[in-house]
């Protein structure tokens, strides 16, 4: 007897059918694409038994904008404007690997001052990204107040980024061979001296003080909170081997205890000049992912402080041809972005734009762990785990 038959029967003979076994089928819970805590348009199709997740399938692609294809019909300078919209929470950091890749293909040596400015702004992007994370995870666990405290300090950092670049989220500040001269500093033909706005370096230092203050607050208010610990400790554990197998990168990987940081191993920016620690966790649970990012903010502010002290004088731009043509060849450059490893694979046929551009984003790979990780978890833990992975849908779908 099929289920449908049984149901029809029970409708007609409800008196006789009292002894029919009660069926409790699993419920399909469709979280998203519109849901308050999926950070955009992620869709999760979950088979739930009560509140326990039996199966889960993430459905991505609701924000696919076709950047890789768009890049094929654009010139290299135009692509700069595209790439900082991939992960808009840390827009500036997205530009760096693309610029470095192009410059390496062209064989351009970027002046040191420009590299330092890039580095300072990248770390600021990291701080602002992590502050968003530090405030949004408690929000998803039901505490709204840390949001306001962390975002207030993030605003200082964004103001500085805006002061230097003119944009809060999409700076579009890098040029092939260096960084953009400040507005009103002269024409591009003339040698430009002025770059960062007046007082930028001092304000940066005081902003870093505030950032470290709010981190101390977060340690006291969030990390030490009994309920927060109960909700995050031992929840969503990604063991180191699983993390590596799924291609998890960035703070999520380091929280699992793998001390892998491209800032230490690669040389896309002069990180080797600075003294900072690679922060690792031990358990790989939500709590560790939070604690690692919290400490990373402090480390990033340390880097910024040192860079502000040591920033050399000099040119902002290397000598580049008026029309940028990249010689034939291919290259992959990756960078430690706030959300993890981000890489650009450029295939050039010698034209003004790339023949093919492949973008490797951290959030996409980090999300791949979801269906394995969430099996058998509770719905409330799903939210905690989603929040702790720190992804942005623009970074997932591109």
């Amino acid at each position: 007897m099929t289920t449908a038959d049984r149901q029809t029967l029970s409708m007609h003979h409800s008196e006789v059918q009292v002894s029919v076994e009660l069926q409790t089928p699993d419920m399909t819970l469709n979280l998203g694409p519109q849901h308050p805590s999926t950070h955009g348009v992620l869709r999760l199709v979950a088979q739930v038994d009560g509140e326990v997740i039996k199966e889960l399938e993430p459905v991505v692609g609701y924000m696919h904008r076709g950047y890789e294809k768009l890049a094929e019909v654009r010139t290299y300078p135009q692509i700069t404007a595209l790439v900082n919209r991939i992960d808009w929470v840390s827009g500036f950091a997205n530009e760096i690997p693309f610029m470095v890749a192009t410059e390496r293909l062209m064989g351009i040596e970027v002046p040191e001052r420009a590299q330092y400015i890039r580095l300072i702004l990248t770390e600021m992007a990291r701080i602002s990204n992590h502050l968003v994370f530090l405030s949004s995870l408690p929000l998803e666990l039901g505490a709204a107040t840390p949001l306001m405290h962390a975002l207030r300090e993030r605003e200082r950092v964004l103001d500085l980024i805006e002061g230097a670049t003119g944009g809060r989220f999409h700076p579009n500040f890098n040029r092939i061979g260096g960084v953009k001269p400040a507005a009103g500093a002269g024409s591009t033909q003339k040698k430009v001296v002025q770059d960062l706005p007046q007082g930028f370096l001092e304000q940066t230092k005081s902003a870093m003080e505030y950032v470290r203050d709010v981190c101390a607050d977060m340690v006291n208010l969030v990390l030490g909170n009994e309920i927060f610990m109960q909700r995050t400790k031992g929840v969503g554990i990604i063991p180191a081997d699983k993390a590596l197998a799924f291609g998890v990168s960035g703070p999520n990987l380091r929280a699992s205890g793998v001390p892998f940081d491209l800032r230490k191993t690669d040389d896309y920016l002069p990180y080797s000049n600075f003294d900072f620690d690679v922060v690792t966790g031990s358990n790989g649970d939500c709590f560790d992912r939070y604690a690692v990012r919290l400490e990373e903010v402090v480390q990033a502010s340390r880097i910024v402080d040192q860079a502000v002290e040591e920033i050399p004088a000099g040119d902002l731009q290397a000598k580049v041809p008026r029309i940028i043509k990249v010689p034939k060849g291919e290259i992959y450059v990756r960078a430690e972005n706030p959300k993890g490893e981000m890489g650009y694979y450029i295939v050039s046929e010698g034209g003004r734009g790339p023949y093919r551009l492949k973008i490797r984003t951290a959030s996409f790979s980090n999300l791949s762990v979801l269906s394995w990780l969430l099996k058998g978890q509770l719905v409330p833990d799903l939210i905690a785990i989603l929040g702790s992975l720190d992804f942005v849908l623009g970074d997932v779908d591109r």
Partner: protein
Amino acid sequence: MSGILDNFWSLLALKILFITGVMMTVSLVIIFAELKISAHMQSRVGPYFAGGRYGWAQPLADGLKFIQKEDLVPADADRPVFKFAPMVVLAGTLAVFVIVPFSPDLVVRNLDLGVFYALAAGSIGTVGVLMAGWSSANKYSLMGGLRAAAQLIAYELPLVLAVVGVVIQAGTMSMVGIVEAQAAPVFHLGDTAISLPYIFQGQFVGFIIFMIAALAELNRTPFDMPIAESELVMGYLTEYSGIRFTMFFLGEYAGIFAMSAIASTLFLGGYYFPGLDSGTFGPLVLMGKVGLLVFLIIWVRWTLPRLREDQLQSFAWKWLIPLALVNIAVTATFKVVF
């Protein structure tokens, strides 16, 4: 005038009007307090424009806006249940005020089983929540409703057990009687008779248990899993809009008022304050104590994250209920021995 007061039905109508009026007004004040206090806790300004000064008219404006909105009922919803649910919630909360004494005489009905009645009426609201969750034909609503039901079962027990200590100590279940018992002098300091509310007479643990359980009963953070906007969108409220949502909303804040009023009557001495005439200042004294507790509840909400449903259950069964039982045993022992 005396004619109106003598007639049973006209007096009843007056009482209902009075209670509804007071409850609605106080709820609006609490909503405004929550908006402003949470804003200042988060270094924001909060409502600012409505009403000219301090945005005092913000809750009124919100209410007006909700009344104008369309009364949406989902196509698959169980219409009668869906429409009836908010009324159950609001009525359940309203019913509690029958026994809250604002002064020795200013009480709708001084029931002999007042405490028992208050706790029973207070839990009616959860039935409404369950109805709302079931009838909405929405999975999030259903989960929210079921969470609320599970929560009710877990937290009604410690709530009742916490009150038992007070009842033992006072020897009565009448709310007025309990306040009078707290007004009675405990000891004499020279010529002045000192009386203490029960929170200072050994019921401190009971008070803490009562407040925790009340938070769970009110679905307030850290026990707001039935709503849990980051998990269940808006829980059982997801499909509600317009005036029916307003009824839930008012019900929630009236519930805060009711629970605070009961707690201040049972543990903080209610309308009695040493040196003040209860007949004249009673309502003000009670409101002051209610204000303290309401602030406490708002403070907790904007400080803590929420627990998980299973953690809440184990907290209730493994900690609160045993603790409440110990509290009863200790209170009873002291009552018999001294």
